């Protein structure tokens, strides 16, 4: 049973898991501070006969301290997060040499279009497979997302990649898988009664295996 984020299988796992851990530490400190403080106060200052509470309306220095510390922490966190956000999702983040794969979502399946031997989408040798996403390992992949009907969401937990697929929009998302193996692509946006079963298999393969699979699959698709 997992008690942590899913296994790591893409280059995004480094920054995202690192950031997750950093936030967990920051919030963990705040959490312990507040909860232990509360329990301590609850025990220490419980009502006892003949005692009167300390009469005060506050303390400006305390207000300044507990306004400034969270403010500085949050702005710093924002800057660090943005650094990675720009790398992962920024407008120019997609590597120019990324290998293109078309993913067309419809209620309730994923239609994956491969570029064929020429490595380009939109040419005659493209072919489409249902609910199977094959990607070569160690190479940036750009998925070109489109939807037939409603909003779906492309989510591979082990890659830490998620992007809504919106009808009427052509959205590109990229990732680079690092560990060969079999994973699952799920729809993470409620898309109708079959939402729960809108899943595809993801196969991360070595370049040779991928090329061999593509050759065979292209042949099957053309028959």
């Amino acid at each position, binding site marked *: 049973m997992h008690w942590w984020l899913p296994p790591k299988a893409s280059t995004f796992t480094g920054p995202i898991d690192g950031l997750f851990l950093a936030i967990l530490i920051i919030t963990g400190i705040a*959490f312990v501070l*507040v909860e232990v403080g509360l329990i301590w106060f609850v025990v220490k200052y419980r009502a006892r006969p003949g005692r009167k509470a300390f009469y005060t309306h506050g303390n400006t220095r305390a207000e300044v301290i507990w306004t400034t510390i969270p403010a500085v922490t949050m702005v710093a966190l924002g800057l660090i997060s943005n650094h990675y956000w720009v790398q992962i999702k920024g407008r120019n983040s997609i590597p120019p040499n990324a290998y293109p794969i078309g993913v067309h979502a419809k209620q309730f399946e994923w239609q994956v279009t491969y570029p064929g031997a020429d490595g380009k989408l939109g040419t005659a040798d493209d072919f489409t497979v249902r609910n199977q996403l094959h990607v070569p390992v160690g190479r940036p992949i750009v998925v070109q997302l489109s939807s037939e009907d409603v909003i779906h969401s492309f989510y591979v937990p082990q890659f830490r990649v998620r992007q809504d697929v919106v009808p009427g929009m052509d959205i590109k998302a990229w990732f680079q898988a690092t560990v060969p193996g079999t994973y699952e692509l799920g729809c993470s946006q409620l898309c109708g009664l079959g939402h729960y079963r809108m899943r595809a298999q993801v196969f991360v393969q070595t370049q040779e295996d991928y090329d061999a699979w593509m050759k065979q699959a292209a042949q099957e698709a053309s028959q």
Partner: protein
Amino acid sequence: MTSVAATAHGAHAHHDDRSFVRKYIFSTDHKIIGIQFLFVSLFFLLVGGLLAMQMRWQLGFPGKPMPGGGILPETMAPGGVILPEYYIQLVTMHGTFMIFFAIMPLLVGVFANFLIPLKIGTHDMAFPRINMWSFWTFFIGGLVMLSSLFVPDGAARAGWTMYAPLSARHDYSGASIGQELWSVSIIFVGLSSILGSLNYITTIINNRAPGMTWFRMPLSVWSLFITAILGLLALPVLSGAVIMLLFDQIIGTHFFDPGAGGQALLWQHLFWFFGHPEVYILILPAMGMVSDIISNGSRKPIFGYHSMVFAIVAIAFLGWIVWGHHMFVSGMNPTLGSSFMVSTLVIAVPSAVKTFNWMGTMWRGNLRFHVPMLHAVAFVAMFVIGGLSGIFMAATPVDMQIHDTYFIVAHLHYVLFGGSLFALFGAITYWYPKMFGRLMNEGWGKVHFWLTFIFYNCVFFPMHITGMAGEMRRLYDPNQYTFLQPLQPIRVFISISAFLLFATQLIFFVNFWWSLWKGKKAPQNPWEDNGLEWSLPSPAPHGNWERVPNVYRGPYEFSSPQVAEDYLPQYKKLPTDREPAAASAATH
């Protein structure tokens, strides 16, 4: 002292000759309207809970016949086994009922109505008839929403957020009348909130008692005032969007249908432009009432009153510029994501200020753990968890992983249940004597509190873990995914805890009803509080005061060295106090 006695006795003398219908049904009395909201929204809270229980059955025991599920029709649960199309109706209607018909009316409908005139010292709302309509439009909206559960093809099924085009086109969702009834109902609810907000704002600005300056108002009134401003500005946006949605559904427009030139993301922008201020509508009143209760329970002035007011204003202001954090992965321009991330993270600052000030209030206090205080302290403890877990989603790269998973489900329930609902249990117990003249049972109140606190955490804390593991929300059966199958024991644990949590709420309901007739008779000021409402007998009479009281000080003068008791009401005149300037000019 004379003014206390005079007002209390004066109220008794007030003669009430209204008919039963004018008094209890089409009432214009703010207290009766508040109580009407209370009964109706507690009923909807129960409905929302029952829907959640069915979801938890399916998630814990997928495919097994639900006990008592045999009464459901074949189209929902043949033989008691929940169908996918029924499950997404449950998801949708649970969220809808809880947000629009339970938490929001409980906080605003009940307590803005009941507390504002009593706490600022006036006879009623500025517009009592508009106030009556605010309740009845809400009631109609509620009936429409409830009826949608019983139409042939079922209730709305696009999630409470109604993302278009799933919600806009019936061939996508599979529901038709249900979707349309949802839209109609929400238009009524929006109208109700707008009417209410208008009233609360006007009343607070114009009808404060002599000496009730802005910075002598209790934080509950401050938060309800700011909430009303949010409501007045946000609900029209929702109403407009829902009217567009309804047009798409019934008269063939295509605002949200990209196939015909519409924009799917337009709905999300409109919805969340309303939706995020709405989140603060759902928590600010809770924060305000918790502030009142913690100060009372600690027998100490609220720590940093002005900071608390400014924090409320800051949260409300920031609430308008963060809606895009619901849309980081929606396909919105990622550069916008950066700015929404920063504005969202900044909200942690006023939230932290409030938390530390609540702790500062308890520090060196003389804490009385009456039932409202238990709930108020639990509110702080749980709100902190909900607030901190929000930071994970605010950081855009992390949101890529946990967006739309059970992590967000955990987060929102820590804020709405751990926060708002705990505050509500506390507030209902606290003001119950002023509503009904009797106290709720203390012992059962404590049993209810502790069991709720334990089971609540058993239900929602493990959701953080399944969310981190990648479990998507709104899945009918997560076991479809191989990587989610090992989490089934956690889901079973959550479900069993949820059933126990629901059962525990029966204690509250029984205590509530039983105390109406059999509860201990409440004295005038059972909690030894400072607010103006405690100068009235319990229950507070129609028209409140014959002559409204004068206000001599702020609302949190506990343990003041000026008096021997540990509380000093706002309406109590000490020999050193001067009459407020407005008192002589007032026409009351």
